[in-house]
């Protein structure tokens, strides 16, 4: 799959639910400007001339600069549920893309997250945008490098409370599990419990690698 840059503009959203990803980005925490998609799927800043760049936070300025950087093109591509992707993935082994600047968004995961908490969905899409941009800008295909750069602006949530499913006590196989993702914020953290369903049930005694699975339920966790 080849993604070319026909316009010289900077971010392009493609594939399933691309319009919803725009809404997600606009719901990011402490957003200081909004974005919209052109008919061709190019990201544009709403009322760009009214945005006072000098008053943007460090994070917002980085996102603004990425969107208005005409030298580098990054892509977000919405795809159907992928058992290897948790929310977003970088340089997909599924589509055998080795082009820098392309992140793949699991639209099914995002739909569940959006329904649970819109701000969390905004943080995820913003993270994926900056990951793709970092790759486009530097040409890097190293996930760890671009993920770290994106995390400085839109931090990776913590991942805790990895638990088995209550109705599978005493069984020799597991069909899934749950985990809690938490976006840490100064005022109030956002925590969601994600239920995963494995593609194939796995023996409880031999979880030697990361089992492929889809997110099938996301609910907000109210923490004290």
């Amino acid at each position, binding site marked *: 799959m080849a993604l070319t840059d026909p316009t010289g503009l900077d971010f392009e959203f493609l594939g399933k639910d691309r319009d919803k990803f725009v809404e997600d980005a606009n719901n990011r925490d402490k957003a200081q400007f909004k974005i919209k998609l052109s008919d061709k799927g190019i990201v544009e800043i709403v009322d760009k001339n009214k945005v006072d760049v000098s008053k943007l936070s460090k994070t917002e300025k980085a996102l603004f600069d990425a969107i208005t950087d005409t030298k580098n093109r990054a892509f977000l591509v919405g795809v159907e549920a992928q*058992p*290897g*992707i*948790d*929310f977003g*993935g*970088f*340089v997909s*082994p599924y589509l055998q893309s080795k082009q820098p600047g392309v992140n793949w968004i699991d639209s099914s995961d995002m739909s569940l997250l959006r329904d649970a908490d819109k701000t969390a969905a905004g943080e995820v899409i913003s993270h994926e945008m900056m990951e793709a941009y970092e790759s486009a800008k530097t040409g890097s295909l190293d*996930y*760890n490098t671009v*993920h770290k750069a994106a995390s400085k602006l839109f931090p*990776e949530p*913590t*991942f*805790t*409370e*990895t*638990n*088995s*499913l*209550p109705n*599978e*006590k*005493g*069984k*020799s196989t597991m069909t899934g*599990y*749950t*985990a809690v*993702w938490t976006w*840490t914020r100064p005022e109030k953290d956002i925590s969601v*419990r994600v*239920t995963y369903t494995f593609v194939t049930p796995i023996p*409880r*005694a031999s*979880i*030697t*690698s*990361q*089992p*492929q*699975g889809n997110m099938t339920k996301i609910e907000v966790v109210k923490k004290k």
Partner: protein
Amino acid sequence: MTKFFTILLIIFALVISSSSQQNSETTIANFVAFDKFSGLSNPREPKQMFIIEVQKSSFFQAGKLIKVVYYPKTDGFRGGAKFLESDTLNYKNIWKMKLRQPSEEEKLYCEFENYLKTSDGEVDTDEKSEPTLKFHSTQIDADLKFNNLERIPCMILDSFLK
């Protein structure tokens, strides 16, 4: 005033020097047990949890057990993490480990538990109705339970060499 700044600079240099010495400290140790369920960690930032036994260290007594968190390389996809495998983890292997203190954020990952729990907070059980232990021995094919797990010190394993 100049003298004050000179003293300040010396203190600063000493702190930097002491900090870098601590960062470069090597602990000689071997793996005692690994968390069987590390594969269920976040594929975007996977983690693997171990218990190690110190053989030689400037900070810990020989024989001391330490909880260790390790970040395997990954491509961010499920199945993409390069978890340490049994041939590496075998108790017979002695490693020179670069360990460091966890950051404030990382302390969250130092909360090890002996048992797998269900999402409603109960202890999970296997098909023999036995509680599901999380840690597996690197010496024998058996699961292990550690007493006072919460009191065992926790470090981050940055790298290791033979």
